[in-house]
């Protein structure tokens, strides 16, 4: 994967401009300020007063904030990746190289996730500060980071697939943000609404069943379940990974077809394509 030429080119391009260090520095400064503010607020100026339970709350708050920021920043980096190539008129030449559609999509997904992954990494020292006071255990932190990383790659993948399918940066950005809004807000509001309904009316089987199913699709909820901050199934993350994995594969198929209709010829019995086949020119 690291030999993917598109990935190397994207890294070179993205890291060369002032945008990357500015985003990373700005994010780190904001998160540091927030962490110190939360720590100060929790001890009220007296360091010895810091309790492990309060420290865990800070960890949960920071990781939620990080997940929200990452979820809404990822489409900004990924939603114009393939459509942008088409709009800059670099796509036809790229498609006449031996790079497979899979390599092109993988290169785009990983390069758009890279900066966000870097943002996660630079905040690790802040989490170590929280560790100093106890509360969160290392396994918890590792699982939360791994889940955040997975969510970033997932959102990047969905955004890149939208970008490939609709081939217009404006539309792909709208669709990518609609997807993220559904994941973060839609499932949360619906799931929480249904769980409230289930609490008041426990015999309503529909509400009881679907409240948890919907919340299992919410990255903030799943992350909170990994931190033990909410009462959820220990397999909530498995449901999340499985459902969105299926969605990603379902969207990857038309994306590959868009890039290279011949790559999908396994689905056609006749060697003839229908007239009016797609053109990316």
């Amino acid at each position, binding site marked *: 994967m690291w030999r993917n*030429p598109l990935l190397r080119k994207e890294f*070179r391009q993205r890291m060369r401009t002032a945008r990357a260090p500015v985003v990373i520095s700005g994010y780190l400064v904001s998160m540091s300020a927030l962490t110190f503010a939360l720590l100060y607020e929790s001890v009220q100026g007296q360091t010895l007063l810091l309790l492990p339970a309060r420290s865990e709350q800070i960890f949960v708050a920071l990781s939620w904030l990080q997940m929200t920021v990452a979820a809404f920043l990822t489409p900004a980096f990924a939603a114009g990746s393939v459509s942008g190539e088409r709009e800059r*008129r670099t796509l036809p030449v790229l498609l*006449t190289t*031996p*790079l497979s559609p899979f390599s092109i999509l993988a290169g785009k997904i990983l390069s758009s996730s890279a900066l966000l992954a870097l943002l996660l990494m630079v905040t690790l020292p802040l989490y170590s500060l929280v560790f100093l006071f106890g509360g969160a255990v290392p396994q918890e932190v590792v699982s939360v980071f791994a889940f955040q990383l997975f969510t970033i790659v997932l959102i990047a993948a969905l955004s890149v697939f939208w970008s490939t399918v609709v081939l217009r940066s404006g539309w792909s950005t709208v669709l990518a943000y609609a997807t993220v809004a559904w994941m973060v807000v839609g499932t949360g509001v619906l799931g929480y609404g249904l769980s409230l309904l289930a609490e008041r009316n426990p015999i309503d089987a529909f509400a009881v069943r679907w409240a948890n199913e919907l919340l299992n699709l919410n990255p903030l909820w799943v992350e909170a379940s990994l931190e033990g901050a909410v009462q959820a199934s220990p397999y909530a993350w498995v449901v999340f990974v499985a459902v969105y994995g299926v969605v990603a594969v379902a969207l990857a198929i038309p994306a590959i077809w868009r890039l290279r209709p011949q790559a999908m010829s396994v689905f056609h019995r006749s060697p003839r394509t229908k007239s009016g*086949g797609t053109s*990316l020119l």
Partner: protein
Amino acid sequence: MIETRNLCKRYGRVTAVHNLNLFIRRGTVFGIVGENGAGKTTTLSMLATLTPPSSGKAFVNGFEIRRQSAEVRRSIGYMPDSFGVYDDLTADEYLEFYADCYQVPKSVSASRRRELLAWVNLEDKRDTYVNALSRGMQQRLEIARCLMHDPAVLILDEPSSGLDPRSRIELRAVLQRLRTLGKTILISSHMLHELSEIADEIGIIRGGELAAVAAVDVMRAHTSAYRTLRIQGAASAQQWESVLSRDSHVAGLTLEKDGVEVLYAGTLEQQAELLRRLVDAGIPVYQFAEQPTDIEELFLRLTERTTTGA
């Protein structure tokens, strides 16, 4: 090396390319000429595996474009008529990226990049960002990019479009040097005279169909003997025809509102004799002048949708 058999491309009810049959031998520079919308770009894009044909077959370097598209892509260097470049990459990094796409070994890639940049007169722009290069320089860099993996076939779609006269001359010099590489080159343009300086053979495409194919020297021999004469005068169609049809050097005649346009193959003396005969026939001639000849139009009129061998 490149062969198409009844190649068609339809977009709904519109037929962009209709039953195209083309045979281009190895090492030939083949120019494909036609107006905008004639089907040149669609043809080239099908051969570059970008656009799937509606029907028919095409082979590039012996590989069928649909079933063996990966092999076709490895065999070609394709330059589209309208291309963009990546920002924030130098000319050398730009070529390196494409060398990596074609898995050119690192040991070969560095020296080839140097050679190619020198070959297209861009050695001093090696570390210049591609988006800072002029359009003409970008076109030459694109040709270097097409050659990066040493393909057997080059497909160049209107490489000189959008260039100023100076850049056009510089690019033409590069294209003429391409001939020396012995590669099979398919190059399109909407200007026949431009292609005739580069190509060995020319195909004229109109309305998605191949109207004529000929070797450039055959075409030159056909067209150089002819002149277009514009004769203005007050005469009826019968009067014009009665005099002009008796001259065996008149190859074509088009009646116009105030005169005729004549395709003439005689000498200057025979041309003067024609003018004398018109005056003797009582036709008042106001103007008798040679017009610039559209060689594409002339060639088509002479071949009348037939093909002539090389």
